[in-house]
């Protein structure tokens, strides 16, 4: 077989190999940003004082919130703790640019993760039936994660 006339499945696998590297590089950048925004003590999280204010304010609006605090299901921040909170997340996601960034992160992660999962399963599956089932499972997981994630991102702050 000449180098310019590879079979369809060979070209698909080569595309998967390249795609895994492209999405991988993208994910390094998106995850660095995601980590900075959601896990580091920046203005994208609530300080302990801000969170105490949010708990007071929200507690007056919703009885379920008061009950959750009484149960310990919602807990005040420790000194110097920075907390991910609904207000801060929806405030950030009100910006369409942030919505786009988070959707790109989601799609890249789902593509990279499910392609990687399919590659790992392919190393241990011999029969073409089992391989097809693995591909089907990976595609379904990709679609499930992507659709559910986009619904969550687009509907943030609508309530």
């Amino acid at each position, binding site marked *: 077989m000449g180098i310019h006339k590879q079979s369809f499945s060979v070209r698909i696998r080569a595309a998967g190999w390249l795609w895994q590297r492209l999405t991988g590089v993208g994910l*390094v950048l998106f*995850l660095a940003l995601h980590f900075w925004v959601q896990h580091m003590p920046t203005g994208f999280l609530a300080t302990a004082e801000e969170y105490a204010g949010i708990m007071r304010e929200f507690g007056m609006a919703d009885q379920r919130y008061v009950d959750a605090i009484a149960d310990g*299901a919602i807990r005040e921040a420790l*000194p110097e703790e920075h*907390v991910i909170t*609904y207000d801060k997340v929806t405030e950030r996601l009100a910006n369409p640019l942030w919505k786009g960034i988070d959707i790109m992160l989601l799609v890249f992660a789902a593509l990279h*993760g*499910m392609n990687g*999962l399919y590659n*790992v399963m392919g190393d241990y599956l011999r029969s073409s039936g089992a391989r097809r089932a693995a591909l089907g499972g990976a595609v379904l997981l990709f679609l499930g994660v992507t659709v559910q994630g986009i619904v969550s991102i687009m509907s943030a702050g609508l309530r």
Partner: protein
Amino acid sequence: MRPPTRNAVPSLKNFIATVVSMTPKPGLVAWVLHRLTGLFLVLYLVLHTLGLRSMSDPVAFEKYVTMYRQPLFKFAEFLLLGVVAYHAFNGIRIILQDMFLRSGSERSLFYLVLLLTAIVTVIGGYHIIYPYFIAPLLP
């Protein structure tokens, strides 16, 4: 423990001796770790996406976040950073070796990957665990 000879009797003792006597090569360790961290991250991606369904309800979201703020989960968040950092740095190493370096440099590059992973995990992770595990120890 001395490795058993090729025609040694199959026994638990000889199995353990064989495993212990194997010298793990950096390339193999890197591959195993990349695969294990990758599988873990796929599982985490699914759980994370399901958890964020709570974004549709402020009270549910605040409960979800509070669950992830337990001390054990804060430690897990620290480890998660380590898992992501390793997978990212080792992935960059794989790309560099595929495209430019070929084989021969994987040993020193793998040690560089481990070093960078440790640095990022300690520096980033410090901020994660500070209110829970470090501030209480300070006078």
